[in-house]
């Protein structure tokens, strides 16, 4: 109690400090489109600094009088201005883009200053424009592929859904698109992500030091914001590439005769068209194979202080092979957000969100046709209040309430086949979060950001829960090294609204920065995270058909602790900067399937999984060049990540699927002249884990492999060089060409090495008794070309 009182007194005292000063606040916008800019640096008298929030809003306290103000942002011209302050004032700023005609990228030292001075660490921020400049497979720029060129982010192979952060699994990433959770971020099985790069304004990935405003996943938060649209004029672009065509339109809403409309919208659509060529292949003429997606964002200023946002995403992958199989999967999300400037110091945002991920799987074989349908739906509401107490203190607090409905599976007859319809029972959950986060500048040298999140998860009825003989669904038999299923001794019926099981988690978060001098700083961060949803996958890399399952009586929540330490340095006036981070992450109660688990069409998922622990640690170094004709970065990661689950790998730690000891990335952009610029990247990674057989035997006429250690062997090293070239239009013209060449020296990188029995003699398919090892590579050299037209 006393502690709470002290805290209140402390907050109160913070409030009183501020009274002597005036507050200036407002928005920073893009000059040509009027779109709000987030993360813009605002520095007053070269000493007081702040930056705009996710909605382009800032607030800063200064004494009355004349001040020098500098507004700077990557890719935009810096504004330096003298302002006279005689009381609380609202001042909006507009930044102009650095002219594309400029031969090189110029950076003011203040732009890199943020990297040194902010308490943030283990954070990667990418602008939509940067993503589009990187060489892309088949000319389709992709945020998830771009992120993998940064230290600490990887994927198991080129075609896996999602990504791994610092040794975490794919389901441990919270992916937010305008606040809505995206449950599966992949198109075409992972070759591309669901994010249309045209519609993305900014992507920010937290690998560590995750603030208490976020929760629900163990390893990272990827926060993607969509473009808001131009408030000044209508416009758009059309892009045609090898794999897809896309279009985007944007423009003002209710502009009237004003220079800037009170609102704007952006609508983007994309469709792949590989299937349009399928008629060329006789076998595929009745098949379909494509993905499409739509992005929508609209915002409207109700008045000076209140804005409404509506954003949505709808995407589907569909493919169907005549007479064999059909499948459709995709996400749908919609969010409605209201932001309100309550006063110069108080900013309130409230979002109401709907999100849905579903897939259908149709068996089209004659005689046994059926449809399998599974989905996860959530409704989420999250108000968040930001209080710019004074220049040294910013407080954020909020609640986060999510209601989940899991529909694990429903099987129904297709074309009148003799299938008994069956539906697995729905599962329900309610997740609550309550948090405070305080940014505090203690002195010029020391800044802190710390907070606490209380998370709570309730598994709700209506559901029938099994009771097992010993209380748990499985018992490990150490003698035989197997899990034995326990008898079901009864069931308990919970009716709608009953709490079946409740979990609570306290999640402390802390980031601290110690500034040695203007260009050198040390940072430290710690976070604990809880995760109540589990993506149960019995495959090396997740598939669109994996099932999300909530914690409950038989599945515990997972939690993690991560400690990271970093050193940041900028030199030559911010021309270059260096970051060095080391981390240790401990994962608890992560789920893994038991050997021989069958997860598809399994209702009692708890009988197929075991929970264990993981640990990962590593060192990440990144050297960036921010200015000049040539910009880019060189990064190196040294890392290890391991998992230990009772009953797997003789109960010892084994390398995680994403484990990679060395990873080196070199990414560069070169601006030759007004019309040409180039991008290149080189990737080197040491071999990922693979399991080789330790023996062979026969069963029912087939050769079977026996294995001893999970992930005990390594694939060959991975390396690849990519190039891209962009030809910008002449003055007055609007067409842009992008050429890219991925895997320039045509290396056949191993996506996997597998062992099996040769299954053919000549043209005849049969078990041969002969064995082989085969390396699979996804692609050699891939050239591509795409064209973009702006109007």
């Amino acid at each position, binding site marked *: 109690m006393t502690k709470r009182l002290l805290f209140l007194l402390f907050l109160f005292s913070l409030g009183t400090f501020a009274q002597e000063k005036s507050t200036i606040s407002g928005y920073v916008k893009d000059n040509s489109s009027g779109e709000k800019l987030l993360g813009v640096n605002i520095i007053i008298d070269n000493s007081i600094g702040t930056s705009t929030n996710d909605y382009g809003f800032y607030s800063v306290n200064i004494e009355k009088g004349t001040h020098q103000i500098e507004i700077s942002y990557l890719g935009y011209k810096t504004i330096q201005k003298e302002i006279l302050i005689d009381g609380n004032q609202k001042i909006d700023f507009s930044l102009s883009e650095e002219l594309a005609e400029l031969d090189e990228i110029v950076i003011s030292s203040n732009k890199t200053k943020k990297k040194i001075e902010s308490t943030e660490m283990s954070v990667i921020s990418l602008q939509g424009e940067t993503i589009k400049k990187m060489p892309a497979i088949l000319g389709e720029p992709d945020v998830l592929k771009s992120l993998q060129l940064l230290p600490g982010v990887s994927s198991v192979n080129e*075609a*896996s859904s999602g990504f791994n952060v610092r040794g975490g699994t794919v389901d441990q990433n919270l992916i937010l698109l305008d606040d809505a959770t995206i449950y599966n971020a992949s198109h*075409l*099985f992972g070759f591309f992500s669901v994010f249309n790069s045209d519609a993305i304004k900014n992507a920010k990935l937290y690998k560590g030091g995750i603030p208490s405003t976020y929760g629900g996943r163990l390893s990272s938060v990827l926060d993607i914001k969509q473009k808001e649209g131009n408030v000044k004029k209508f416009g758009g672009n059309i892009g045609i590439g090898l*794999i897809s065509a896309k279009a985007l339109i944007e423009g003002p809403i209710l502009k009237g005769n004003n220079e800037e409309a009170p609102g704007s919208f952006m609508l983007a659509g994309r469709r792949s068209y*590989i299937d349009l060529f*399928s008629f060329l292949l006789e076998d595929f003429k009745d098949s379909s*194979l494509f993905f499409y997606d739509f992005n929508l964002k609209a915002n409207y200023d109700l008045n000076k202080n209140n804005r409404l946002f509506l954003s949505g995403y709808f995407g589907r992958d569909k493919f169907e*092979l005549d*007479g*064999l*199989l059909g499948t459709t999967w995709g996400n749908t999300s919609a969010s409605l957000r209201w932001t309100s400037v309550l006063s110069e110091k108080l900013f309130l945002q409230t979002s109401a969100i709907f999100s849905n991920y579903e897939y259908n799987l149709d068996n089209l074989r*004659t005689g*046994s046709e059926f449809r399998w349908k599974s989905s996860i739906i959530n409704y989420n509401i999250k108000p968040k209040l930001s209080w710019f107490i004074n220049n040294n203190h910013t407080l954020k607090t909020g609640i986060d309430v999510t209601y989940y409905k899991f529909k694990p599976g429903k*099987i129904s007859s297709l074309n009148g086949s*003799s*299938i*008994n319809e*069956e539906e697995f029972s729905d599962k329900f959950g309610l997740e609550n979060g309550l948090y405070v986060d305080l940014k505090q500048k203690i002195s010029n040298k020391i800044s802190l950001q710390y907070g606490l999140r209380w998370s709570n998860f309730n598994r709700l009825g209506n559901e029938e829960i099994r009771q097992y003989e010993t209380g748990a669904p499985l018992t490990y038999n150490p*003698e*035989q*090294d*197997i899990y034995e299923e326990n008898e079901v001794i009864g069931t308990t019926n919970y009716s709608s609204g009953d709490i079946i099981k409740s979990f609570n988690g306290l999640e402390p978060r802390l980031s601290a920065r110690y500034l040695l001098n203007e260009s050198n700083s040390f940072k430290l961060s710690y976070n604990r995270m809880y995760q109540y949803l589990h993506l149960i*996958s*019995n*495959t*090396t890399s997740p598939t*669109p*058909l994996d099932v999300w399952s909530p914690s409950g009586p038989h599945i515990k929540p997972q939690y993690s602790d991560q400690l990271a330490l970093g050193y940041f340095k900028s030199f030559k006036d911010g021309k270059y900067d260096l970051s060095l981070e080391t981390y240790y992450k401990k994962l608890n109660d992560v789920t893994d399937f038991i*050997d*021989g688990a069958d997860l598809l069409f399994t209702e009692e998922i708890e009988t197929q999984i075991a929970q264990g622990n993981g640990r990962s640690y590593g060192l990440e170094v990144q050297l960036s060049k921010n200015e000049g004709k040539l910009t880019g970065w060189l990064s190196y990661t040294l890392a290890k990540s391991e998992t230990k689950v009772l009953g*797997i790998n003789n109960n010892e730690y084994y390398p995680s699927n994403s484990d990679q000891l060395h990873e080196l990335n070199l990414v560069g952009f070169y601006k030759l002249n007004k019309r040409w610029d180039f991008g290149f990247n080189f990737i080197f990674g040491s071999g990922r884990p693979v399991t*080789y*057989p*330790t*023996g*062979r*035997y*026969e*069963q*029912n*006429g087939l050769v*079977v492999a026996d294995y*001893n250690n999970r992930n005990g062997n390594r694939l060959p090293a991975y390396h690849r060089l990519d190039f891209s070239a962009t030809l910008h239009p002449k003055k007055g013209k609007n067409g842009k060409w992008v050429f890219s060449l991925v895997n320039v020296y045509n290396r*056949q990188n191993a*996506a996997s090495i*597998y062992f*099996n*029995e040769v299954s053919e003699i000549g043209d005849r*398919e*049969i078990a041969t008794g002969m064995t*082989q*090892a*085969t*390396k*699979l*590579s*996804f*692609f050699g050299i*891939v050239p591509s070309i795409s064209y973009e037209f702006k109007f």
Partner: protein
Amino acid sequence: MKNIFITTAIILTILIFTSCETDVTNDITLEDSDPRLVINGGLERNTITPLTTQRLQLTTTASFLSTGELPFVSDASVTITDGSNSWVFTHSNDGFYENSEIIPELGKTYTITINWNGEIYEGVDSLTEVPQFDNFYFEYEEETLVNDAGYFVKFDTTDPINIPNFYYYRLFKNDEFIIVPDPGTRDVLIVSDEFFDGRQRIGVNPNDEVAFDIGDVGKAQQLSISEPYFDFLTELFTQTGNIGNPIIGNPPPASIRGNLINLSNPNNRALGYFYTVDVEEDTITITEN
């Protein structure tokens, strides 16, 4: 089901990319574990063509990429009991152990005891009745994405209601048993009645990878298997059908647990499954209609 998905995913990769497979058999060095005992076989009750001799084979494991026969085990003692009677299986040749007196019966549970190398192994399975074919015929089918054109052996069969049933299919072409180690096997050769309990199924194709020509003789067997054996075969066909494509994932390789327990030294596991099955079969000669 998921494996059909993998197959199609592979077709997809080939469509989009220049996906490529290289034989690296000669570049790989494997570390082998100590040889383990393997059982291959079990008891079969067949009322159509009754077996005069029941036999099963014992071998040990060999290095995966090695060629040649597996090392036979000829010096084990093998006994099978149904709880009241027991039968000794004697070694004939090449690791095969035989007995001509045992007649497998429905509803019985059989236990095998193997004494080898000073260690005792034990395995249990039970025999349940298989439903008959209601109709047995062949049909001509056009070529599809995964199958050749040709005649296919088919049957109709009715699942007994309110009993969990598990089936395994064997197909013989001109008396040769045919099985293909590919991802489709798991979806076709074994099935549980989970979604069709008590129903008649029409046009079941016991192995849609085997097309017949006119003049060929087709024989199909429907086997009633126990649930643990069904689980074993599910994993067996998943692993042997692994064609390594991680595009939508493939199960991490793992040792497949059979039903033999080493009573003397549990860590020295034996591999393979001692099964007891009931067999329904029929034979048809493919003719011009």
